[in-house]
């Protein structure tokens, strides 16, 4: 009955609110994801960028409900198409996995079972959610393989993963993920294990399929080039939090966070003189057990003295600076704009 009194709120297709994923270990609590919020619409692509260990993969696993097997402590809310997933029971989330949301993994060789044929694995994925005969599922698997650009799908369907090349395996992986026509597709570093020419093909494929199926896509990567090509929105993660998010245009053209500047500076560019060195971000990603106090990025930040003591005492809030562009930094907007236009942009 309480439903009657709740104001009907229009939720976004995917809405993550204050998601936290913590792991208890012998050394202490690992705060892999610590207060993450974002939204995503159908047909749009969100790029999540960050170094290794910034919590990108953990948050995507949490979306899929796969963290339930890892004894993680989770809090917050994940709304997918009007349903809250964190509080849903295991069986219900399982029935959504593969059908409503699907995932492409980084290394397709280890992500596919070595003892079953590629076809068998796609057929299995399809038949969990569709009550059809093996023959029908097999036909569907061949269609999917054909759709993702695998030549001679009729015979390749009976090959084992080790008989495929790296790029072909990733295509097969995509075919498997898309076999049930998911509305949310999460691609966790889909091109990292592939060589460069194949990378571009796979990205194009994901782009095409997204347009064809109209799904929402989350693409997780540490490669800014990948998100530049695919993403509508970008979220930059650092130490389990979002430090900057907004439309791809905003984040690429007027980045506001020193960490984003660092990521842009460490990206190799073909239009640059080879004698110029890349600008790596100094230091290493922080331990997720002892996250630095205040702004987690301050030990590596060149501008940490500008805002004063607040950098080490207070965690910066994610503040909207207009057009949905949000930044978590203690510097004032003016200070950041000045540094970006005078110091950072000319060097890029």
């Amino acid at each position, binding site marked *: 009955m309480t439903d009657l009194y709740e104001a009907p709120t229009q939720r976004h297709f995917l809405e993550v609110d204050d998601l936290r994923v913590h792991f208890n270990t012998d050394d202490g609590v690992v705060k892999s994801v610590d207060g993450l919020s974002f939204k995503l619409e159908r047909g749009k692509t969100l790029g999540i960028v960050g170094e290794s260990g910034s919590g990108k993969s953990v948050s995507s*696993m949490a979306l*899929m409900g*796969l963290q339930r*097997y890892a004894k993680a402590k989770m809090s917050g809310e994940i709304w997918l198409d009007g349903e809250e997933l964190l509080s849903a029971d295991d069986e219900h989330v*399982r*029935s*959504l*996995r*593969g*059908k409503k949301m*699907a*995932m492409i*993994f980084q*290394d397709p060789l*280890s*992500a*596919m*079972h*070595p*003892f079953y*044929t590629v076809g068998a694995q796609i057929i*299995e*994925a399809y038949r*969990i*959610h569709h009550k059809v005969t093996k023959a029908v599922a097999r036909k569907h698997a061949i269609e999917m393989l054909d759709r993702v650009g695998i030549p001679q799908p009729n015979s390749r369907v009976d090959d*084992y993963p*080790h008989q495929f090349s790296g790029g072909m395996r990733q295509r097969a992986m995509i075919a*498997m*993920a898309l076999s049930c026509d998911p509305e949310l597709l999460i691609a966790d570093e889909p091109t990292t294990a592939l060589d460069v020419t194949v990378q571009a093909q796979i990205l194009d494929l994901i782009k095409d399929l997204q347009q064809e199926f109209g799904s929402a896509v989350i693409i997780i990567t540490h490669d800014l080039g990948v998100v530049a090509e695919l993403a509508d929105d970008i979220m930059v993660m650092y130490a389990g939090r979002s430090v900057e998010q907004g439309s791809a245009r905003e984040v690429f053209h007027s980045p506001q966070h020193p960490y984003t500047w660092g990521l842009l500076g460490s990206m190799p560019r073909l239009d640059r003189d080879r004698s110029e060195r890349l600008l790596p971000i100094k230091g290493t990603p922080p331990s997720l057990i002892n996250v630095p106090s205040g702004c987690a990025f301050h030990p590596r930040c060149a501008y940490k003295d500008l805002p004063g003591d607040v950098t080490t005492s207070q965690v910066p809030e994610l503040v909207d600076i207009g057009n949905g562009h949000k930044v978590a930094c203690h510097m004032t907007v003016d200070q950041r704009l000045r540094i970006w236009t005078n110091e950072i942009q000319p060097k890029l």
Partner: protein
Amino acid sequence: MLFIVSIAVFLIFFLLPRIGGATADDLASRYVGKTADAAQIHLMAEKLGFTDPLYVQYGRFLAGIFAGADYSTGPTTVHCPAPCLGYSFITQNPVLPDLLDRFPVTLSLAIGGAIVWLSFGVSAGVVSALRKGSLFDRTAMGIALAGVSLPIFFTGLLALNIFSYNLGWFPAGGSYTNFTDNPALWAYDLVLPWVTLAFLNAAAYARLTRAGMLETMGEDFIRTARAKGLPERTVVVRHGLRAALTPITTIFGLDIGILLGSSILTEHTYSLNGLGAYALQAITSNDLPKVLGVTILAATFVIVANLVVDILYVVIDPRVRI
């Protein structure tokens, strides 16, 4: 392979005694009565071919296996048809029929025991791996440690004492019914030996399965299987256990091969008249041809089991090509 086995067996049984200082006459003395004098023994040694050069003896040994052999012990000549694994002069019988006679007992013991230990060992290992650190895991692994450490003549006698003599649930040692006569009684008679044999092996398999499952359940393809939305049971059995099965198959093949050759301890503890008991009796009575026969048979089983395992690999793991 079998050729190498035949040479090895031949060398062990024919050459080692000679290196140890035994003369042809010493060997022959085992085949004659106690009253025989030195000349008679020497005559026997010549008749049996112990005085011939080694390669001739080996040739005769091989010929016996493939074509059969004739043994003449004075007035009568006994024909030992191929494959002749030797002729016992103590019982005046060729060895092979004896072996074949006792083989069903050993086979029953091995197959039944294997089924018991495979089902218990593998399932205990899987559950232990899935609930790592739980009470079940620690209890099962504790029992497994006991199982691996306790010898059969201890657990076997204990089981006999409790379940047969005190509780009277199962027959005493020495009971054996042919499977073809009465399958139910056959199984009933063999329950205790099976369980005893299985206890030792199940423990090893439980530990092996647990380790394998712990490894595979952390693999990427398990995550993929879950991401597809497969029920957890399917993930564990079809994806996890399937991958963890390879090393288990290897060990299982070898164990079965060895067990078919003989399970001396179990057979002796339960007074079962199988190959193990036969071997034991042959050894204690110094009846070389019998020991030799059992050894060749056992070696053959081990080799065949190995071969079967290697062939099975192709079925189990498609990445393996012969």
